């Protein structure tokens, strides 16, 4: 499993991650981010794309 961290001090709700993997990342009605904190290894490519496309470099993955 891959652990996903988002630094909420950095996140500005651009929604890049939501566009890449809408099943793993969501914005609520107030544009606050929520996400799946443990993700199967098969989704590594999506997670790496989210990490590398986040304009605030707020996403970090581990494992």
């Amino acid at each position, binding site marked *: 499993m891959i652990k996903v961290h988002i630094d909420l001090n950095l996140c500005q709700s651009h*929604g890049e991650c939501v566009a890449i993997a809408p099943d793993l990342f969501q914005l609520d009605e107030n544009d606050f981010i929520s996400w799946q904190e443990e993700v199967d290894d098969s989704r590594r490519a999506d997670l790496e794309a989210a990490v590398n496309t986040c304009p605030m470099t707020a996403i970090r993955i581990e494992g």
Partner: protein
Amino acid sequence: MRLVIVGASLSGLRAAQAARRAGHEGELIVIGAEPHLPYTRPPLSKELLQGKQEIEDSALPVDELDVQWRLGTEATGLDRTRRRVRLQNGGEEHYDRLIIATGCRARRFDGPGAHLDGVHTLRTLEDAVALRAALASTRRLLVVGAGFIGCEVAASARSLGVEVTMVDIASHPLVPFGPALGKRWAQMHRDHGVELRLGPGLEALYGDTGSERVAGARLSDGTSVEADTVLIALGATLNTEWLTGSGLELDPGVACDPTLTSTRDPEILAAGDIASVPAALAGGARVRVEHWTTAAEHGQLAGRNALVAHDERTAHTAPPYFWTDQYDAKIQALGCPALAEHSELLELSPDGGRFVAACVQGRLVVGVVAVNAARRLAWYRRALQTPRPLTELKEALAQEDATLGSPVGAMP
């Protein structure tokens, strides 16, 4: 295989990371004109200028990439026959595959008074540090150019209590968001106390007699603006001089096919601001996109594509995404709103503070602009993965139950 990347900003870094992730085990050389490891530029005009972030916060995580960094040296020439990049420090780098990501620099004002103290541009970390220091003792800032950098700096300066005059020859600020919303952006700046002068251009800067310090500007309509600090925000100039005589097609960016491969040399790819790439939204014409996300996406793709033969490379298809933060508005856009003939409001929150507008050319939606509506923009991004007519987009929207609200009446 020896992979050389020229350009050590966002695109160059993402290319290096992608190449390593895709299994590149050979040498990896990244050449950068600036003395720094890669950093992210968006905070320079906002958080850094406002004092909410420090210099080190803009550093991009570099990981353990096993890169040979050649920093603080510009590429000065490209010899494709010998496959070598010539460097300012006299050295050369041999490549098997080359990724060009040298981007842009700030365009300068070259009229009278351009040399005066107190005249700034904003592109690099040093620029931002110098401007931040200047704003601390500025009474009135003159911003020349009401594009992204100009408007963001104007907003940052207002938040610091600095008086701001902003001039632009265009009829409204933020041209890339399209013509229809321009009045709204103009009003936003005026509401926050910016003196906005639309129409006249900058003729000359002047100092007080006997002083080398800027004191004001003369505009093309004959009027003057007093200012003790001036930001020239007239867009960007491509860093392509070093490619002159290389035989690469420059249009004036590096002309590429959809896989970011140079039209003249399959061993050479380009990424970011400098890459001129065919775009579906522009009817297949090549466009250059000077925005953060495209630079990140191009870099990732170029890094992977550089490792394989030309016919195995994949195309870049994502429409542009870009944003700006000014005062309390996050303005986000997809596609090419500047191509639009008109805009149509699709969603509006009951309080009027959040909305989404479609930017339309002919029947086709060529762009979407959203204000304080990030969640909704993600929906449009999925809905507009391929260009669609407005009627079709509206039908899809009618099936959605989580919109901001129905727009009533004219544009906000």
